[in-house]
């Protein structure tokens, strides 16, 4: 079997409107190499990948495969390029077999399922992962779906596999499994891998080449043996950043403010997602819940926030049973900030000002006589919060969906923190998709809240974030709390194992 094609990007530039996504980027993926691309959000990594695949037509520069210029997706696919995206490209109600067959470009008009299954079976014998062909994709866990995605590419005969943040939905052990398999295939020179990632540990462990992009420009390329993590980080950000440690007073036992007992919550498919979870949040602490996404965290946050019904179990706040009515939310001061705030915590078409007032519009000073809206007061409150929290918006009357992700997050935080009524803040993945400045802002707000004696329940898929600011960390896996540790006593290997479900 001949080697995979050499992939070369020469001086690629791509502009969207007035955004310069890529500016003269050049890159070389040699046959049989494991090449990582790193960079912050917005550095242009995904855009570059899509240019290589022919999804985007570069404004300048060209893509060469084995020396020949390639311009269309068909040509790229023919030459053996394939990509595993961040979002799944599987049809949920079709089976694994149907999804694999679906991807084939040369299907006959009438499918001979016997022959197709034969082909699939023989493929699976040589394949690095095992999956059940007849399970519907919607019933697979995220890790299995990811494996099916990779299998799909291998089944199609992909020789250069581009992966966009593949391990973000995998447990540490699943990630290791996948990466090791890919590594082995690369060693056999049957595959080249182009890995887009922000996990520098992965880069050093598996890749032999790394390219760093920053704000659409190529910064550096190097063999991984000639470089180290701090240097890569420095090149990514463009300045020296020491590993941030927010020094904070160590919190000892104090009064519980939120007690969750034996909570049972069902997910969208009717199966339990939160299985008899119990936890206690104390005053003046940040309690983190670590875990790979898809293990019940989303449903837990939705249940606390009142967006999902609780089947059994109880939530008690300050000793009083808690049900998420508007009155209870206000008197208890339990505010919830779910992930993807634009979709889950705002009314996208409504203005920034109105969204900022979502918790307060029915009370004085924003409401008069208990039922009339006081628009002047609404405007003043919004202006104040925009100023205080540095929310960048064209105007307080712009629809909130026109704001960038970071500003939406600022707005939602402002809403909950502005008038000091928040006593318990439940936050999920607040820094997802945010740049360094916005992330630092959010973390400071949370730590500040904690320092004033309030409490934060921080659900995060980013272990580094929890290591930075959480006092105590729980691990959630398979809908249950499986491990608890103080940040100071934390053993990464143990936590990783629990996250993986062992």
């Amino acid at each position, binding site marked *: 079997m001949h080697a995979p094609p050499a992939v070369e990007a020469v001086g690629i530039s791509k502009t969207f409107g007035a955004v310069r996504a890529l500016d003269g980027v050049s890159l070389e993926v040699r046959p049989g190499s494991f090449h990582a691309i790193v960079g912050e959000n917005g550095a242009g990594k995904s855009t570059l990948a899509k240019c290589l695949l022919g999804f985007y037509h570069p404004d300048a520069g060209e893509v060469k495969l084995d020396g020949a210029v390639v311009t269309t*997706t068909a040509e790229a696919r023919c030459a053996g390029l394939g990509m595993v*995206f961040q*979002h*799944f*490209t*599987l*049809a*949920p*109600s*079709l089976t694994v077999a*149907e999804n694999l*067959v*679906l*991807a084939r*470009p040369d*299907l*006959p*008009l*009438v*499918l001979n*399922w016997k022959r197709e299954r034969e082909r699939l079976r023989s493929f699976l014998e040589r394949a690095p992962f095992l999956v059940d062909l007849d399970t519907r994709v919607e019933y697979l866990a995220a890790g299995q779906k990811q494996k099916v995605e990779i299998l799909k590419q291998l089944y199609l005969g992909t020789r250069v596999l581009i992966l966009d943040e593949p391990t973000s939905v995998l447990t540490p052990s699943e990630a290791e499994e996948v990466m090791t398999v890919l590594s082995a295939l690369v060693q056999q020179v049957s595959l080249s891998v182009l890995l887009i990632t922000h996990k520098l540990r992965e880069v050093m462990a598996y890749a032999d080449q790394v390219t760093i992009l920053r704000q659409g420009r190529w910064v550096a390329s190097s063999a991984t043996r000639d470089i180290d993590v701090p240097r890569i980080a420095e090149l990514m950000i463009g300045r020296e950043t020491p590993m941030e440690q927010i020094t904070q007073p160590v919190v000892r036992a104090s009064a519980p403010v939120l007690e969750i007992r034996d909570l049972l919550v*069902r997910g*969208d*498919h*009717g199966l339990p997602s939160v299985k008899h979870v119990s936890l206690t949040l104390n005053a003046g602490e940040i309690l983190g819940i670590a875990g790979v996404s898809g293990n019940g965290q989303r449903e837990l946050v939705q249940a606390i926030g009142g967006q999902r*019904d609780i089947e059994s179990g109880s939530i008690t706040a300050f000793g009083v049973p808690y049900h998420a009515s508007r009155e209870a939310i206000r008197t208890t001061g339990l505010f919830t900030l779910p992930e993807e705030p634009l979709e889950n915590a705002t009314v996208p078409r409504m203005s920034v000002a109105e969204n900022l007032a979502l918790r307060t519009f029915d009370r004085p000073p924003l409401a008069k006589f208990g039922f009339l809206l006081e628009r002047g007061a609404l405007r003043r409150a919004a202006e104040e919060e925009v100023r205080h929290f540095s929310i960048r918006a064209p105007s307080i009357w712009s629809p909130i969906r026109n704001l960038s992700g970071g500003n939406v997050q600022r707005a939602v935080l402002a809403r909950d923190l502005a008038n000091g009524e928040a006593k318990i803040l439940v936050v999920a993945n607040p820094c997802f998709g945010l740049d360094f400045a916005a992330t630092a802002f959010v973390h400071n707000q949370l730590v500040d809240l904690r320092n004033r004696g309030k409490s934060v329940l921080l659900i995060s898929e980013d272990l580094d974030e929890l290591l930075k600011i959480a006092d105590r960390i729980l691990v959630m896996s398979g809908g249950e709390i499986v491990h608890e540790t103080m940040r100071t006593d934390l053993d990464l290997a143990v936590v990783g194992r629990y996250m993986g479900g062992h």
Partner: protein
Amino acid sequence: MQNPESLGLLGIAIALAGGAIRGSIPYIYVSLGECLTEKSGRINLGMEGILLMGAMTAFGVSDRSGSPWLGALAAAIVSGLLGLLHGALTELPGVNDIAAGIAMIIFGSGLAFFFGKQFVAPMAPQLPVFDLGASVANTALHAALRMSPLFFLGIAVALVLHYAFERTRWGLHLRAVGDAPDAAYSMGIAVRRHRIVATTIGGALAGIGGSHLTLYFPGIWSEGISGGQGLMAVALVIFARWSPLRCLAASLLFGGAQALGPSLQSAGISGFYHVFNASPYLLTLGVMIFSCSRNRTLTGIPGAIARRG
């Protein structure tokens, strides 16, 4: 000659069975058409207007040309065009397919009533009938065994769709388009084309269903000829969990419900006439209350439809 009254309960049952088969035909076509449309990820609520337009076209063309089959064909073409209109309109960004469906109901019925005004003749040349019970002495049984070829054609369409969904490339692609349009798009499948084609064919099928109304039973043209059947077929598809074969079975059920009033009347049970005539609507409502539930997603629902609502 025996008549249904003397057969008592059996007579009612026979009349009901015959009526069920006869009444199921519009439901079969419209529900199969809607099933196909929804499998591609689109909801076409405008089926009522498309059905009416098909009915009127069939009547008109049959009347003018003398050939009922030409009428049915014309109905399929015209209704297919309306389906195409709906499909194209809903591909425009920001167009809500529920609102588009309501627009199609108004537009389709408006066109049908407008062009239908000119047809004064009470009856147009009717579609031929298979007189399967020709040798049977009992009039009731004889009547029940008179079946339209459209019934058998409808069964064939259901089987073809079932087979196509499972075993052809087109069917696999279509299901992917309806389930995960973004994924299908990234695989190079022509998402828009599949949806528009499915909606067009869906409309054409509804047109054939409409031709049955004017060219067989009740066999006349009037503005009230459908009375919501197009819409009930949409509910039927949900009840049938988007399976062509189950659509077939459910259509027979609905046809039976529709035949309830007249069957009882022919057996001499009158009174509560309007209530019995409303039984299809009540049945549909009941069916929907039974099938739907707030929290659980329905099994078999195409992903694109589940996520809209």
